[in-house]
């Protein structure tokens, strides 16, 4: 950071030196620490993705050995899920914005917030060192008994890394919940909260209710591997399927940890770029809680072929259809918000529109998988891979990129070069569809996932080549922002407090904001997204 002269102090230039960053208690600086670290993990995960796609270019397993390939997809999944996607929006944008949006000076527990970053870092370093020492090959799901009794890779190191990182997620969720409950500015009632806050509140609930269970489950795996305990060991009468129950009790809700904050971002973007209140505010707000709650009841839909009882399968299938309803409500309300809006086509809005379309496809293909009769065919095939990349990449990653662009001027005080941003949004969209759409077809045709080589069946290679080609385009699209955003930080024109002309407390303070966020505690008198005076009186 160059010393900026004669500028108003803000959170970036208020103090200097490494210690002022690594020991900071300012949620905004911690958000930036997180931003840098999750980006690194995303790039690592992305490199593994590229290697996966290279291997699958040809049917034969000719690029790397099967052991290596197995490590590639495992570490891709682990990095992307636990070290990128779960912390991505909450720990960066959420950390930055939750206090600002509710008019608070900081999160309730700033020191714990910093601690959560260090915990994340320790967990991440353990996962990375496991990777450097030779990697892990169990798949990101760590199914027993392979993970406990058979794999001879670094399961323990990775497992402990995830265990530790889990606590950082718990602490973030915990901090958000307490903050949202106790630190709202005068006048900031629940029904005046921006939808971003509702979404983060709902996601935080999952973080505190679900994450401890995955932590203890991984602990059991580690105990079983290291001390030869027997929780899931079938040779001693244990049940490998019990592991799956415990794993998915967290990991299904976790997919909503991944997508809910993204949905929060989308609500802000849609409202901001149509200059209009979100249609059906209370429905969108409450549907977040609905998703979080019902999300806890459906985990068995990952286990339809696991030998789980057919009755349990039916219940899980039924509830999976219920969880689709709040998502549907959101999609329709966002679309309706556009009606009679004043819509500007700026890059964050492009991401938001992409999100709605791709999440719809991703979500609806989730419904294929919840139909038990159909899942017996689709399970563990590329259809599943396509489904979750549509929701996680087409959904959350797009929301993350959109949000990053939207709040970038607030975070850095600088404007990036918009045409670049537009182009890269389009590249991401095109590359993404080219990568993952063919995988739906491959999946229905029967290509199993986690396959290092595949038989030469009509059309399979063609579809895989398309997918790899798409992945290269996608890689270009996601790497571009790293360049022009960084450039803008140093050389971009100043943004001013509210470059987009939108509402929200965070836009009422300077860009970048002062350390205490606001000159004076704001007093809230209107609902969110009140663009006209008429909006202000509901």
């Amino acid at each position, binding site marked *: 950071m160059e010393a900026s002269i004669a500028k108003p102090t803000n959170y970036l230039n208020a103090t200097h030196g490494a210690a002022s960053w690594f020991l900071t208690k300012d949620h905004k600086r911690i958000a930036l620490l997180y931003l840098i670290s999750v980006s690194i993990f995303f790039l690592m995960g992305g490199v593994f993705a590229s290697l996966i796609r290279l291997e699958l270019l040809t049917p034969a397993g000719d690029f790397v050995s099967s052991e290596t390939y197995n490590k590639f997809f495992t570490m891709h999944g682990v990095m992307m899920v636990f070290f990128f996607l779960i912390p991505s929006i909450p720990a960066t944008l959420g950390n930055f914005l939750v206090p600002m949006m509710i008019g*608070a*000076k*900081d*999160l*309730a*527990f*700033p020191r714990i917030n910093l601690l959560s970053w260090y915990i994340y870092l320790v967990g991440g370093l353990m996962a990375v060192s496991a990777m450097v020492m030779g990697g892990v090959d169990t798949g990101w799901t760590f199914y027993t008994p392979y993970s406990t009794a058979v794999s001879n890779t670094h399961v323990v190191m990775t497992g402990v890394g995830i265990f530790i990182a889990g606590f950082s997620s*718990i602490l973030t969720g*915990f901090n958000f*919940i*307490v*903050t949202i*409950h*106790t*630190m*709202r*500015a*005068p*006048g*900031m*009632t*629940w029904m005046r909260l921006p939808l971003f806050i509702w979404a983060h509140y709902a996601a935080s609930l999952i973080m*505190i*209710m*679900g*994450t*401890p*269970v995955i*932590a*203890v*489950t991984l*602990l*059991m795996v580690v*105990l*079983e591997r290291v*001390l*030869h*305990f*027997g*929780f899931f060991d079938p*040779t*001693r*009468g*244990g*049940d490998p399927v*019990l592991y799956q*129950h*415990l794993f998915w*009790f967290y990991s299904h809700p976790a997919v909503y940890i991944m997508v809910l904050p993204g949905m929060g971002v989308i609500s802000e973007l849609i409202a901001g770029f149509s200059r209009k209140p979100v249609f059906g505010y209370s429905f969108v707000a409450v549907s977040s809680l609905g998703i979080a709650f019902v999300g806890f009841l459906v985990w068995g839909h990952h286990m339809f072929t696991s030998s789980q009882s057919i009755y349990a399968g039916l219940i899980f299938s039924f509830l999976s259809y219920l969880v689709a309803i709040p998502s549907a409500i959101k999609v329709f309300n966002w679309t309706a918000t556009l009606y009679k809006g004043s819509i500007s086509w700026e890059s964050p809005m492009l991401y938001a529109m992409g999100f709605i379309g791709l999440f719809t496809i991703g979500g609806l293909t989730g419904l294929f998988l919840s139909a038990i009769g159909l899942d017996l065919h689709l399970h563990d095939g590329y259809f599943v891979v396509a489904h979750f990349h549509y929701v996680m990449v087409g959904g959350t990653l797009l929301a993350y990129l959109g949000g990053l662009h939207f709040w970038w001027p607030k975070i850095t005080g600088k404007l990036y070069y918009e045409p670049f941003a537009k182009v890269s949004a389009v590249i991401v969209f095109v590359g993404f569809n080219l990568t993952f759409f063919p995988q739906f077809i491959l999946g229905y045709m029967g290509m199993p996932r986690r396959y290092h080589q595949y038989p030469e069946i009509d059309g399979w290679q063609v579809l895989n080549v398309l997918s790899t080609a798409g992945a290269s385009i996608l890689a270009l699209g996601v790497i571009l922002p790293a360049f022009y955003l960084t450039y803008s930080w140093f050389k971009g024109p100043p943004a001013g407090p509210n470059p987009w002309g939108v509402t929200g407390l965070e836009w009422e303070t300077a860009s970048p904001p002062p350390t*205490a966020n606001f000159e004076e*505690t704001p007093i809230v008198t209107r609902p969110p997204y009140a663009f006209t005076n008429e909006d202000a009186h509901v």
Partner: protein
Amino acid sequence: MSEVHAALADHGHEHHPRLQHHFDSLEQQLYASTFGMWVFLVTEVLFFGGLFMAYIVYRIWYPDMFVHASSHLSVPLGTFNTAVLIGSSLTMAYAVNAAQRGARPREQVIWLFGTMVLGAIFLGVKVIEYMDKITHHLVPGPNFHFEDPAYQATAQIYYSLYFALTGLHASHMIVGMVILAILAYKAAKGQFTAEWYTPVEIMGLYWHFVDLVWIFLFPLLYLIGGAH
């Protein structure tokens, strides 16, 4: 909640040295800490919950094995430890109470220290019990040996659960004792007054929670086979 916030905003002008800059008042700060601790305890319930889930499944599957395997636990020692832990909850409650009343540092330290002593006794007994299991080859793994061959395999599940549950519980106590030591030190320096005693109060919640877990572990692990 925000109503608190609003109400407090008006008269939140006292500047207690303990008030962190991002809170408006000590009340708000105390409320956030207390609420935060309860939220933390929620995560603890679910943390132990995963293990309890495994316990439930296997208890349903192997009821007889549980009876046989648990017969190697010492009910007198378990009962003794339960009493010790309940006693430590009482001393902890008195420690909080002493801080709240702004009692003399000496009194605060006595109760905190008493809690630590009882905790140490509990852990000491736990060590004796663990040693006993080790010498009798009741640690799951290749050296496990159970006198009834019919349960040689499945009894390892019981002991896995036993060690995991009690081990996790004991590690919570160790953490608790470290914090107690820090609090005792601070109390000795007279840092806790009737105005500000949040750490002691929070710690009390934690300690009682650990007691709570044990209240369930005791009958579920020790008191299975009594009638047989």
